[in-house]
């Protein structure tokens, strides 16, 4: 039983022109990549980026401003690019190859090694890099620029798509700002002011930023004076104080869909793919194991890395290897005990087993350390773990799969299955937060628009049709479920912790005695 997929409709002349402009811009980048020697690099780069942005702007205006305000999802499952058709796969392959080259074969992009000057695509970006920071471009500068261009151009498109919805507009303006300022411009200017400070996007906190506490970075921070120390302290406060507080008040959305760069790309350039995430129960089960495993890996890896560069002697400096391990062990134990005492009943069976299992792993690693005589904490070489994490999680998972597979797995595959930061914030959101998506009484008609458009693969409808609020670790609070609901059933809210989770059998609107009987048993 299936309906044939009709052909998507033809596009307007204006859109064809817009596509021509945008792809001309892209073509300039391809020429540079093919080592065609372009004169006036600054001019060609400006032209290229300008054409790309211009193409997206013209296309978006024709797409949305020619229609009345409202939900614009017509043909999402018909268009080849957004329904895993030929164009979707082509885009997926191209993006994936781009990420592989970017991470592992940057010389193919023209990165000059051993002091040689850049060529090809990277050389095209030299003038912009010189302008901002006074040095030549790297592959990361090229990537950062294109990333920012994508968020800004497609952010504009997204704002037009939701021009009736101020929540969507403000949130998009926010990710555009944080990407442009904090991820892109400020670090470049910082380099100009003080080249000893390493590249630092202060919103990109550990554990998403897995190299935050690498020795070279910490050394550079400490050696670059007050500003470096301030960055270091802010980095620690971010994860231990600022983010728990904001997540308590607003849910993890304050980060994931208002600030984060990965989230920013997913919400803008990735928006046309949001419905592709799997809503199956099996996907949710996989998600829970995978993302928490990455988090544990990240904690163990970071602990081991920090351990290697701390001193032995507590007399020289109080924060030595042993004290650090005690601190980590103590902190994790505290979290574990608090959850098991106060929130045990809110954990699923598998979550309890998982928590106990991971606690045992970490406790036994620390115990082995104290009973053994090895120099390597946890018997595992810290350097090896660090590079394995960087390779498998940092590059393959977050980049190649996370973004390369947008047209296949949806736009939040990394955020959902891999991001350790999302795991931390999600844990806080599920356990201690005022945030929830409220279901409006008995108004749900089970249509499924909410679940369909959930980029995190939450089966929103499963809750809404029971009249139950949605309180899920993975919810990034993008608000699109609420926007697409045809009956006004869903609202993102920060409210009291009491009654936040409210399973019901009989919904509001039925016999009050029956509701009483069924809902309070």
């Amino acid at each position, binding site marked *: *039983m*299936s*309906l*044939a997929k*009709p052909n*998507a*409709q033809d596009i307007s002349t204006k859109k064809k022109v817009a596509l021509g402009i945008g792809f001309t811009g892209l073509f300039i980048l391809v020429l540079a990549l093919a080592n065609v020697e372009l004169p006036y690099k600054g001019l060609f780069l400006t032209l290229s980026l300008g054409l790309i942005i211009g193409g997206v702007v013209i296309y978006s205006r024709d797409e949305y401003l020619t229609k*009345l*305000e*409202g*939900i614009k*999802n*017509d*043909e999402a*499952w018909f*268009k080849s690019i957004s329904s895993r058709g030929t164009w979707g796969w082509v885009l997926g392959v191209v993006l994936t190859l781009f990420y592989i080259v970017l991470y592992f074969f940057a010389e193919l992009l023209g990165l000059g090694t051993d002091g040689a000057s850049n060529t090809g695509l990277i050389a095209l970006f030299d003038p912009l890099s010189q302008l901002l920071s006074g040095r030549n471009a790297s592959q990361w500068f090229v990537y950062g620029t294109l990333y920012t261009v994508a968020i800004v151009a497609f952010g504009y498109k997204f704002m037009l798509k939701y021009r*009736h*919805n*101020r*929540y969507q507009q*403000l949130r998009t303006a926010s990710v555009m700002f944080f990407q442009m300022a904090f991820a892109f411009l400020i670090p470049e200017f910082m380099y100009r002011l003080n080249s000893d400070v390493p590249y630092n996007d202060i919103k990109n906190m550990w554990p998403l930023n897995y190299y935050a506490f690498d020795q070279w970075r910490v050394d550079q921070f400490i050696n670059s004076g007050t500003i470096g120390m301030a960055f270091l302290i802010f980095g620690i406060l971010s994860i231990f104080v600022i983010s728990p507080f904001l997540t308590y008040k607003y849910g993890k959305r304050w980060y994931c869909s208002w600030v984060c760069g990965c989230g920013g790309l997913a919400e803008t350039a990735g928006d046309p793919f949001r*419905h592709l995430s799997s*809503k*199956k*129960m099996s996907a949710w089960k996989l998600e829970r194991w995978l993302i928490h495993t990455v988090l544990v890996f990240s904690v163990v890896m970071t602990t081991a890395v920090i351990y290697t560069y701390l001193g032995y002697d507590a007399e020289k400096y109080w924060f030595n290897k042993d004290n650090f391990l005690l601190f980590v062990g103590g902190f994790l134990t505290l979290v574990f005990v608090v959850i098991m005492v106060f929130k045990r009943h809110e954990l699923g069976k598998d979550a309890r087993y998982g928590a106990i299992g991971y606690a045992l792993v970490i406790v036994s690693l620390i115990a082995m350390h104290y009973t053994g005589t090895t120099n390597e904490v946890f018997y595992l070489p810290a350097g090896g773990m660090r590079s394995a994490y960087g390779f498998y999680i940092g590059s393959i998972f977050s980049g190649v799969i996370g973004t390369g597979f947008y047209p296949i797995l949806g736009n939040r595959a990394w955020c959902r299955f891999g991001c350790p930061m999302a795991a931390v914030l999600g844990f806080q959101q599920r356990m201690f937060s005022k945030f929830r998506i*409220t279901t*409006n*009484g*008995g*108004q749900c*008609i*089970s*249509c*499924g*628009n909410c*679940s*369909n458009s959930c980029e995190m693969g939450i089966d929103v*409808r*499963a809750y809404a*049709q029971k009249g139950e609020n949605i309180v899920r670790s993975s919810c990034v609070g993008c*608000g699109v479920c*609420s*926007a*697409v609901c*045809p*009956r*006004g059933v869903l*609202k*993102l*809210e920060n409210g009291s912790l009491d009654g936040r989770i409210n399973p019901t*059998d*009989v919904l*509001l*609107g*039925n*016999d*009050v005695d*029956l509701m009483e*009987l*069924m809902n309070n048993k």
Partner: protein
Amino acid sequence: MKNIVIIGNGIAGVTAARHIRKLSDNKITIISAETDHFFSRTALMYVYMGHMKYEHTKPYEDYFWKKNRIDLKRAYIKQVLTDDKTLVTSEGEKIAYDSLIIATGSKPNKFGWPGQDLKGVQGLYSYQDLEKLEANAPDKETCNRAVIVGGGLIGIEMAEMLRSRNIPVTFLVREDSFWNGVLPAGESGLINKHILDHHIDLRLGTNLKEIISDENGRAKAVVITETGEELPCNVVGLTAGVSPNIDFLKESGIELGRGVKVNRFLETNIKDVYAIGDCAEQHEPIGMRRPIEAVWYTGRMMGETLAQTICGNKIEYKPGHWFNSAKFLDIEYQTYGWVFSERSKSEQEAHFHWMHPDEDKCITVAYDKDSKLFLGINTFGIRMRHENFDKWLTEKRDVDYVIKHLPEANFDPEFYKQFENQILAAYNNQLQTA
């Protein structure tokens, strides 16, 4: 352990099945001729529009039924033998039951228009109707124009669907303003304008005379009663309401009116045979409700209630305060309590009406002229909280209280502009001048 058979896998039948399973170990079988699995009928339009695929309209994954020991059977029941407690399928198979729940929903109305059974003429209710529409109107090249007959909720949905594929739509509405048998004039007018804004050729006060066939038995035009005008078209949508889908029960001995007659326990005249959802007709209307309510929520509530009775806790069907919702193209509509149109409201019912200057949002609050008792609210383009109104209706609040506390009931997304102050000002203003 009873053997419970449910005919119909829509919201009513499925809700009953789910609740019976929660409360008991009875054997449960759901029979449907339409689809293998329960899907959300209200979401069919989104499949045609490409927002979703059919599989996304299924509220439960396919493993759910086996896990909950609810047997699904694909068959068309043509006969109910109540003496033998047996059903007969169109294939001649016999199915025995201890308790039978009839939840067969509705079918589109046809009023004997000449040409109503031609090819290209269809309603929009079932999965098969969706397949038909996909075949009849895949794109604007195949379907140069569609004419929709009947100005209700399904008609406007069908117009929205066809417009999503740029198919020109003419919308024939019998009333002189859209849905004004239900909506007060201001709201009905707002929707008229919105329909025109969507480039739908809305013809008010217009009736269908006949549908003209081409040489292949396919609709090629409609004729309008009032003007005699002949409108060429390839597709005719018949959306003049629905009626209970109960033809297969004619010989069964089960008492029928327009629907299956049931008492307040949702029992028919035959022991162990019940009817719920769109196809059930109350002997006496409950409160201001109609005897037949073809509404999603009613089907669900009846299912929730009947499960109790079937499982030994016999209770009356006693729905709470009326509520409903719909979406007219881009404008959402919610209603709580009773607001009647000018055509059907009583002498006692007075209205306070507020409309945004852009004419895309409005509310109507109904109250008792003398006692000021709050009766109900219609809201267009502003989301409101079910819980608040349900509570205020139970507490029998007056209209002053409701207007003053309106901000508490706002359910629009964060950062949306709020209009409660404007509404309050308009209210004070109108009452002083009135």
